[in-house]
């Protein structure tokens, strides 16, 4: 253990919220999250009953299903000191929207608020809660650019934390993305309900990424990453796409998102 936080007394127990998209598309991100959390001095558990945070239902106006899924997540994660997700979107759902969703429920409202208060997006958890200032041993000789996913940025204040840790990756050069804070056009079901608009937005994002000259684009949310990688590949752009946790954990041996073997 080499990181600053590891010297603290007892090891906090983190329940990892894997997220649907990491589970299905990018398991490496889940294992990278475990590695990083352990290196920050935490014990990591992966509750088996977890599925989805309920955000698709919540944002589609289906409060009943969203509340039902929220109660399941709360129950599954209550035993842990912290809930951490490699996604600003899912962490934001638990942290900000569960208390709103269950506000009128005399029992679950309080439980939602208590869980919300100890739920974090992965990278901001490492920096803000565990006091990480660098990742030792991570090495990647590449020029990268970083997209600020909307929920992480505006709901949870994730902005400097990934940059802080990326600066400590040996060989990595970070070139800022123009309009990094503008949405990529994913938006959950938005991208298939209004595909032409979504396409315009992600085309702008892809062009901005290409304009930096970076070889690799990073972000902290799989939704944005699948969208941006999908557009880059369709248009034959050379920029590769990965989740920021893969780079921070040094797990970049496998193909990037949307790349063949």
């Amino acid at each position, binding site marked *: 253990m080499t990181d600053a936080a590891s010297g603290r007394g007892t090891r906090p127990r983190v329940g990892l919220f894997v997220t649907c998209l990491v589970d299905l598309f990018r398991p490496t991100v889940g294992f990278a999250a475990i*590695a990083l959390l352990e290196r920050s001095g935490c014990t990591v558990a992966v509750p088996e009953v977890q599925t989805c945070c309920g955000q698709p239902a919540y944002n589609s106006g289906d409060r009943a299903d969203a509340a*039902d899924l929220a109660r399941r997540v709360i129950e599954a994660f209550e035993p842990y000191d912290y809930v951490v997700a490699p996604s600003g979107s899912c962490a934001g759902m638990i942290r900000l929207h569960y208390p709103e969703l269950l506000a009128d429920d005399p029992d679950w409202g309080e439980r939602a608020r208590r869980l919300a208060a100890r739920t974090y997006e992965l990278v901001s958890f490492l920096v803000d809660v565990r006091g990480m200032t660098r990742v030792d041993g991570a090495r990647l000789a590449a020029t990268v650019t970083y997209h600020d996913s909307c929920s992480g940025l505006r709901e949870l204040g994730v902005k400097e934390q990934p940059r802080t840790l990326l600066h400590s990756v040996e060989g990595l050069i970070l070139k800022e993305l123009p309009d990094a804070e503008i949405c990529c*056009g994913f938006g959950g079901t938005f991208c298939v309900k209004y595909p032409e608009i979504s396409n315009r937005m992600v085309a702008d994002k892809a062009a901005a990424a290409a304009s930096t000259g970076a070889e690799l684009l990073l972000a902290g949310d799989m939704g944005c990453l699948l969208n941006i990688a999908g557009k880059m590949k369709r248009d034959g752009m050379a920029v590769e796409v990965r989740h920021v946790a893969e780079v921070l954990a040094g797990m970049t041996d496998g193909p990037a998102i949307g790349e063949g073997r």
Partner: protein
Amino acid sequence: MQPTAHAFPENARAALADARLRKALGTMKSGFQGNRAAAIARMPEWEELREEGRRIKDHVLAHLDVYLERFEARVVANGGHVHWARTAAEAREAVLAICRQAGARSVTKGKSMVTEEIGLTPFLEQHGLQTVETDLGEYIIQLRREPPSHIIAPAVHLTRDQVAESFRRAHGGLDPGRPLEEARDLTDEARAVLRRKFLEADVGITGANFLVAETGSTVIVTNEGNGDLTQSLPRVHVVVASLEKVVPTLEDVSTILRLLARSATGQEFTSYTTFSTGPRRPGDPDGPEEFHVVLVDNGRSALLGTESQEVLRCIRCSACINHCPIYAAVGGHAYGWIVPGPIGAALTPGLLGLEEARHLPNASTFCGRCEAVCPMKIPLPKIMRHWREKEHAAALSPTSYRYGLGAWAWLARRPSLYRTGAALAARLLGRLGRDRGRLVRLPFADGWTDWRDLPAPEGKTFFQLYAEGRRPNSPGDVR
């Protein structure tokens, strides 16, 4: 104007294919955003001011009846008249009656979104009154018979050459050699035509940014000065304003004014901020002989006490519109009603109903930029989500979408079944796309694959691998 909000997807598709619109929107975005950011950076008390603005408007909305009646009493005491209009039709009739009473033949108008909402200009024209918009942008779109595409820059969807074309067509006898390339040429041309109209007008109609309860004043903020000529030269001044524009005091006006121009154009103050308090008094050098205020409800009072009430805090600065990536992609006309962008998406379903406007609150990624820049701290995504809840409850969304969502939620409640489903999906998608790392086409997912590839899953799902005992290498190591 007939709403076309129901056709938002088709409107958006047409807008995305319009190269001139793309050019116009590109110019707009950089100007508004940069100017606002610079103005706010110079103001350390910005967040406190937003909080104060929110407090003032929330207080007003909780006591709207009190302040409106106080405003009315003050207007009457100043020698003016107040007309209460429940609907657009009542508001139009009230204005027409005032014009008829005054024996008016020609009317000038300052920029006003509520008069666009009630369709006032075409109505007055149908009744034989020559009605001229005097704000440059409004004048341009009046010539082109188009609705506004933005609430403070109504002709922002047009390029300069389109404006020049419209002027050459409308202003008979214009020397074909006269240059109309630069913004200044266009302004001079409009000014020459409009100056005559100001002097001829019998009635001047303006909107109001504020109605001040303690003084009975109405306030407009403009940059062109057209509003002042509209309201001070004709014999009769008619103010058309929606109910929620009322604020208690002049002090409140000055608080909100500090938020308004900075949020809108990045100016500290607009060029003109004009207070109108009743008709001309004996000894006044100028001003109208009659002063009327038409108070328009048109669906707003029905929003009080609902989840959408907070939209009534809006001061129409357009910051949310100027920072919205959806608006930047499709422009204002795609929204199919007077107020576009996030505030339109939150407001229009309340005024037109969800059957007409259900697309608007759905056409958002909930990226949250609108709420972040709103000077009145209106929770725009939250209000849009409330409309989606009403849409879901009324089963207005497509059946396939609702069934799909229901099936997914059913599965998500059954973790072991969900695991099996995810593993199957990973295997299937992997088989279809593993070699290339992506899928170019996927049945039932055209919305995705028409425009972008779908990255293939890496292999097995996380939970499969985790159950098989896979772990990252020991702490401190990197793979």
